[in-house]
């Protein structure tokens, strides 16, 4: 059984570690943001483009399926309830507003955190345990500029774009369910969808997506740099990167909604 003094010391140590991690992640992020002006320089352009390709184009397949079915599920669930009152025509607005405000950025954030964030943590973690990061520093190559900055640019740019894609596919998925299952014509669905959703909803959603991109980059890169203990450590860093990203996305999603709508 642990003594109270030992538990307190352990708790204090964890708090200090948390502060250290947050501070490290913030400095890393700020430094990467500072180097963003070199994102499309001759040295960094290829890496930035590759990261954008990995984040954007390679995620399209999984995002297509997830977005389409998210919209379909939203339409079906909402439509079945609205049908009781003969108001199923309102599924257009329900799906469009839900997708644009919350589900689009949220689903995109989760997919990118799980696929791209985990890959970033694993790659940088492997480089850390194999001392490639140390070698970069020896060669006076700043790892934040060389590794973090292209990923940060890629995620900040691609997350909102992927969110637009998710929104559109989700709304189309809802239209598909509305037309085939609920007897709501595509025209009526679209009229209703555009009637209630506003540009504010769209751009607040895109802002959220950008913030989620920054969070995923910061968490994943930081976990990669903090990796120790070889291959086991890489697995642990990957898992922690995904979990922490999920949690922060959830909390920030609420905070941003609260900030703009209440």
């Amino acid at each position: 059984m642990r003594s109270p003094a030992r538990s307190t010391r352990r708790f204090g140590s964890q708090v200090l570690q948390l502060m250290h991690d947050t501070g490290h992640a913030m400095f890393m992020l700020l430094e990467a943001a500072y180097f963003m002006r070199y994102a499309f320089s001759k040295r960094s352009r290829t890496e930035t483009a590759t990261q954008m390709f990995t984040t954007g184009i390679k995620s399209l397949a999984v995002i297509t399926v997830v977005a389409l079915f998210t919209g379909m599920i939203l339409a079906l669930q909402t439509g079945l309830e609205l049908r009781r009152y003969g108001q199923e025509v309102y599924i257009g607005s329900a799906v469009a507003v839900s997708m644009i405000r919350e589900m689009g950025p949220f689903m995109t954030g989760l997919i990118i955190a799980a696929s791209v964030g985990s890959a970033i943590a694993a790659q940088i973690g492997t480089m850390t345990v194999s001392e490639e990061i140390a070698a970069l520093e020896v060669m006076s190559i700043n790892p934040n500029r060389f590794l973090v900055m292209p990923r940060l640019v890629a995620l900040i740019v691609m997350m909102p774009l992927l969110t637009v894609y998710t929104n559109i596919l989700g709304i189309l998925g809802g239209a598909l369910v509305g037309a085939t299952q609920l007897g709501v014509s595509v025209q009526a669905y679209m009229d209703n969808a555009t009637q209630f959703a506003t540009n504010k909803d769209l751009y607040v959603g895109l802002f959220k997506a950008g913030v989620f991109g920054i969070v995923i980059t910061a968490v994943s890169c930081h976990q990669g740099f903090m990796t120790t203990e070889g291959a086991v450590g890489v697995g642990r860093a990957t898992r922690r990167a995904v979990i922490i990203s999920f949690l922060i996305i959830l909390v920030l999603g609420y905070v941003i909604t609260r900030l703009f709508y209440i």
Partner: protein
Amino acid sequence: MNKYRREVSIEILVGLFMFTVLITLGVFTIVLSSEKIWKESYQYEFVFSEISGLREGDNVYVRGLNVGRVKQTDLEEGHVRVYVTLDAPLYLRQGYIIDVVDSSMLGGKKLKIYEGPDGAPELGESMTILGAKPVDMIEELARVIGGFQAVIDAVNSGKGTLGKLLKDETIHKNMATISEDLMRIMDRIESGEGSLGQLLVADDGQLYADGKIFMANLRIISQNLADGKGTLGKMMFSSVDDNSYDDLQTTLANIRSITQSINEGEGTLGRLVRDAKLYDETTLLIEDVRAAVDDLREASPITSFGSVLFGAF
């Protein structure tokens, strides 16, 4: 070379993706803002005392047709100015009405424009267009409930017919008396008193049996009629070649001819009816016959006795 081509193709793909999504985002923005870029639009200002929650982006309807949206709402000294963008020009006439109404049961508002009666003079372009004060459904509902409450209070305080019915002791007593009388009548009927009671209680099923027999007889009669049995049946259902109808018509014609002759005093019966002298003589004759019959009746026992007496010898 291959590495260079790969890098270029990655950049092209990323650029293409970004370009496509940005164009889509632009279109999306235009669609959500409900702006019709290529179509001419018409701007109008309406002044309301209040707008009851009308917001930017709410629809504007003219004769039930969605023709535009509310672009802006400004709070000014003593009123609210509403700016709308319409797809078609608006021709307001005297007597126009511009209302803020509920867009659905679920909420939301819309602007409803009635242009004014046909033939009324058109408004000048420089005139300020005034909107009607919106009807607040919740306030209206509260007013209706208030009205109901007043009625209930009046009833509770015994005012009016309904109040008196509920509160007046005399009416209650009268009702109780009527109820008692009805109960008494029902008891008497149940115990078989009076005609109704006997009919309902003391009959022991005889009324039902009689009714059943009566109905059976009616059925037999109607069946016989339908089968053409009897005189009436033959008259009603016999075929044309049966000559009954012709016979009946001939008979009726004969009767009419006879009655006509009698009326005109022709023949014995006609003279009897028309000739007063003959009537008197006939009366005298009948009186004589009656006297003769009486004499005969009186003489009959004597004649019988004589016959028996002289018959023995």
